[in-house]
């Protein structure tokens, strides 16, 4: 299988949301987690669907339909999980993000790093 292109920021958010939701990763829960990660930016449900489709085409995630539930009007959920390739690519992205963070702390000082570190927590 060919190596996929590097992940965009929104793709990283969606994959992180899938990883965080574990067995309960489907459209609504992924969207709410992505909104939480991307705050204060608003994220549309449609943008999440487009990204999920793209990630699936790249072979980074896999999907399946679950059983229908009454709170969804008798409709099934499409659940997602990361593939091994997806986990590896996400790991590489996280390492790169950490390197960016450390470089910024070097340039803008430890005080800036502590302030944003507190905000992020």
């Amino acid at each position: 299988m060919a190596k996929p292109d590097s992940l965009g920021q929104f793709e990283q958010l969606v994959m992180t949301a899938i990883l965080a939701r574990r067995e309960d990763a489907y459209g609504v829960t992924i969207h709410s987690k992505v909104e939480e990660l991307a705050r204060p930016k608003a994220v549309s449900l449609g943008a999440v669907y487009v990204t999920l489709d793209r990630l699936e085409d790249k072979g980074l995630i896999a999907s399946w339909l679950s059983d229908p539930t009454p709170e969804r009007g008798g409709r099934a959920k499409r659940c997602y999980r990361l593939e091994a390739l997806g986990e590896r690519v996400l790991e590489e992205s996280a390492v790169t993000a950490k390197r960016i963070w450390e470089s910024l702390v070097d340039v803008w000082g430890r005080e800036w790093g502590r302030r944003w570190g507190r905000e992020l927590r």
Partner: protein
Amino acid sequence: MGPALGKGIALMASGPSKSAEAIVAILVPPACREEVLGDLHERYRSHSQYAFEAWITVPLVILSRVRRTADPQVVLIQAFVLYLSFLCAAWFKEAALLQAQWGLLRIAIPAGITLLVVMLEDAYANPGRRPPLSLVRGPVLGLAFALASQGLFWSGNPKLALGRWILLSGCAMSLLLSSAVRMLFPPATQQLHGANAPADWLKQTGGSGENLRALAAIGAVLLLILVVLQLWKRV
């Protein structure tokens, strides 16, 4: 307090109206209808929220489905074949049109409309392998829309319309060529997997030998049409 609370619970428990859900169900392509309708239902808070969310979600779902089903290489072949059909028809019936102002653009209008409808028809097709004859449905629908648009041009802005014979012979040739291309390179209605996946037809045929044979078939069809048109012009 009691009745108000009961009313609130009833409101929270209610879902979107059947008619609103039916409209959204028609607009969402069948391949992703189940999960999109379920997610919208689960996020339902009020009628206006449901309508607004459907309004901003459905176009993106359609575009994503078009991206998944339309193979860029096959779309380019389709565009070329459709434009060539109307171009050949204009060349045989009214060669002056090719030199006229906006002449080449006027030829592109029916080809563009047909291509757009064919792409949408693939996006709305049921997932799974389709019988070869159902692949003709896209070009037939596309050409019907192209004819309807020309009808509107004839009544509203005749400068943009093509002549009747150019249009009819262009449509006939388009139908033949476009259907042949679709049968040789069937659209991908199944979900694709794999990093940087190559064209779906490439995976289906499994090698360059098959593709060369397919391209040779298109060439043969084109040649046949040119011979028929040449004979028709002499008669």
